[in-house]
């Protein structure tokens, strides 16, 4: 008998703190698997941002730094500039990255910090109980947009990957999701590529992952995946926005 799938050594034994069916868990294991497969766990440092994934410092089987809300990329910069040969990555939600932390993230990208950003876009503030995020969809009801998000009042969903595609020193940038096994495999490929580029010192890499929040969306985990596919993907198309490895071998 051959083991086809088992829990990666890239994760610790600590049970994940996520709600049932929350795809934070899937994304965690993809990242962890990639780190394990690349053999870089011993030289990796994860920056755990503030959001439901704040406890990721307990979950990834490597050194970890918990950072202030939104500032993960600044913290990563502080680490990576001093440890240029280590693998440094942030794991950030849409509140953390797209709202309070957009400045730090854009500038880390623009400086070309050789780090990887795992951007988990679940269109909501999960941790704090379901407030509107910059990426919430038009019409989406949240605790701070109780009548649904309205473009005229709240603005439109912010397209992070589209924005970052305009930054010269981004080396790899893709939007993926995890709403079915095929997408999960795609997502893993993107994450692998991002980390590989970092190891190759090509510059800033980011993977945006459309993720679910069954609890605050008020849906079952399975319906949540459908919602990603049917509602989120049309607004946030899945694609490679930037790939310096293809454009030109930097």
């Amino acid at each position, binding site marked *: 008998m051959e083991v086809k799938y088992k829990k990666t050594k890239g994760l610790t034994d600590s049970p994940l*703190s*996520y*709600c049932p069916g929350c795809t934070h868990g899937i994304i965690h294991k993809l990242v962890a698997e990639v780190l394990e497969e690349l053999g870089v766990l011993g030289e990796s440092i994860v920056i755990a941002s503030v959001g*439901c994934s704040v406890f990721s410092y307990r979950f990834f089987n490597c050194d970890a730094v918990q950072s202030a809300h939104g500032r993960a990329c600044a913290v990563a910069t502080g680490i990576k500039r001093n440890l240029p040969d280590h693998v440094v990555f942030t794991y950030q939600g849409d509140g953390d990255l797209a709202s309070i932390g957009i400045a730090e993230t854009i500038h880390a990208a623009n400086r070309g910090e050789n780090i990887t950003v795992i951007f988990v876009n679940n269109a909501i503030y999960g*941790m704090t109980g379901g407030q509107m995020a910059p990426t919430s969809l038009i019409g989406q009801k949240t605790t701070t947009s109780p009548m649904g998000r309205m473009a005229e009042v709240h603005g439109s969903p912010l397209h992070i990957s589209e924005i970052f595609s305009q930054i010269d020193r981004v080396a790899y940038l893709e939007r993926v999701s995890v709403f079915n096994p095929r997408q999960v495999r795609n997502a893993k490929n993107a994450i692998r590529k991002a980390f590989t580029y970092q190891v190759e010192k090509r510059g800033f890499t980011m993977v945006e992952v459309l993720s679910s929040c069954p609890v605050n969306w008020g849906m079952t985990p399975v319906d949540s995946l459908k919602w990603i596919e049917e509602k989120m993907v049309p607004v946030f198309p899945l694609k490679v926005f930037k790939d310096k490895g293809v454009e030109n071998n930097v």
Partner: protein
Amino acid sequence: MCKPVNIRVAGFGGQGIMMFGQMLAYCATNDNMFSLWVPSYGPETRGGTANCSVIVSTKMINSPVFTNADVLVAFNQPSLEKFKEMIVPGGCILYNSSMIHDPILPEGVRGYGIPINDIALELGTIQVSNMTMLGAYLEFSELFSDATAEKVLEKYLGEKKAHLLGINKQAILRGREALRALKG
């Protein structure tokens, strides 16, 4: 009632713990008594447990926290274990006997097991297990009348959930009955 009653309510997330506690506080307000409801909040609720405390009193409530509760309402086994030691001697534990079997209770504390899951399922939905427990508590404590409980329940459910009023009332009734039977 000359001393405030301190009540601790605990269970899994999803068992309606917060509503149970709030209903008591609303009943007190309705009856012009003082009341104070304190939830445990934050990510630990994500871990799957939920608890809150309620103080009901005829005079101004001072300390909003208490170490020793008069009553524990335990909706599952871990909650019972976690909180049973805080019950004062002479105090009482109401527990969900659908999930807690043969509990070991502290010295000097009475226990009443009500099979609230089973009763609720009999009524048609597990959702009303908390109101079943409320019925039991009301019967036990003799704090509030049925009229008060029903009035508060109606408000609580609001228009949107008005259709659930009937089954919830029934649950309260069945809880009362169950407790009455135990008290015997």
